[in-house]
């Protein structure tokens, strides 16, 4: 339990640093990948829901401090943390109910579905709240689409690299 806690905390800090120092500077045009959502996506399935909610909220809030953005990242993270069980069920079906999923061993289609649903919801909330103005809805939707694709590709690459090294 304690080992798990230390690992999660390190992963948390690593993702915040990587997001601020690396991913935010990997801009293509106006599109930035928000790879830090991997924290919510890869959070252990068996853990308590309120721990996931709280740590996702804190993760978003830390990024809000770095980007001086109020609470937009916190809101987006909290929402995907809350919706995660439903998305898991939708993407992985029965195996989720037995809680036996290993992210490195699930079929690739289900994995892409799971990643992309959470990423799109996160980015949509993020960009809608960022402008907080319906006259910029075109901007929000366009950014959601392209940033989501970018985030998804980077996340999948990172996850694949990371899990291969583990074996």
């Amino acid at each position, binding site marked *: 339990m304690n080992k798990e806690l230390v690992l999660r905390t390190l992963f948390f800090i690593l993702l915040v*640093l990587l997001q*601020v*120092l690396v991913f935010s500077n990997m*801009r293509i*045009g*106006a599109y*930035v990948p928000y790879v830090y959502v991997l924290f919510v996506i890869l959070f252990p399935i068996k853990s308590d*829901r*309120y721990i996931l*909610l*709280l740590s996702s*909220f804190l993760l*978003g*809030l830390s990024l*809000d*401090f*770095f*980007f*001086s*953005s*109020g*609470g*937009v990242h*916190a*809101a987006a993270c*909290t*929402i995907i*943390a*809350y919706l995660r069980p439903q998305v898991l069920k939708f993407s992985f079906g029965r195996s989720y109910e037995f809680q036996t999923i290993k992210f490195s061993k699930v079929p690739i289609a289900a994995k892409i579905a799971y990643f992309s649903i959470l990423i799109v919801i996160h980015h949509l909330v993020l960009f809608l*709240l*960022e*402008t*907080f*103005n319906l006259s*910029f809805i075109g*901007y929000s939707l366009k950014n959601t689409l392209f940033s989501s694709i970018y985030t998804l590709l980077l996340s999948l690459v990172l996850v694949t690299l990371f899990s291969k090294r583990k074996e």
Partner: protein
Amino acid sequence: MQQVISYLLKKKNFLFFILLLSISLVLTIQSHSFHKSKFISAANDVTGGLYESVNHVNEFVNLDTYNERLLKENARLRKELSNFNFNSVANELKNVPYEFIPAKLIQNSFHKKNNILVINKGAIHGVTTDMGVITTNGIVGVIESVGENFSTVLSVLHIQSQINVQLKKTNHIGSLVWDGETPFKVQVADITKVASIKVNDTIITGNYSIFPQGINVGKVVRAELDQTQNYFDVDVKLFNDMSNIGYVYVVKNKALKEINELLIQGQNE
């Protein structure tokens, strides 16, 4: 009562979610309202310190450009100074109401709609909110929130930014805003049709702003009457390259304190 409690216990995850979501939404709404001290900002020692240490690399790469800019500014100032008689100017300079605090931009941003920048000077260096931030070439933005050692700047490339400007030629005033389209063009609103504004006219900071009057802002690239035929739609190209800012000056208006005190006195009487 017991039923209510057991119901709440069953829904405790949902309630916790609503609590966290409301906190984030309150913080978001607060960040979108003008003239409020912001709690969530990068003007603290942790985020500022990290940005500053990373910025050292960036500074090294751009050192040549920054040096050249400084040389050009010095040359320009020397030329202006050579027109004056030193003794008479020295006396006048004592009465200049502005002070300039040099600072370094340690975090830039220009691709979002709400661009907030971070500089490495804060409260202990005399920075307070609502001070103007300029460079050698033009204006950058307005101080938004101040920490001990760092401050954040609301960039002119922020959809809520609004700065009093005027036409250099005719002194007609307007306000500098940004429609969020491209970081290369900003807009001037409220220029009336009597102002005969043309392409290539220069826009400078106005009389009623936190900036000293007459600081260069940009050049008009498009000026057309709007649908009502009463006001101009004006696009301006900034003199500043917002993607490469480097060193800045924070403008401290010493007279502002006096003016505010007078205003408060006037209200009390």
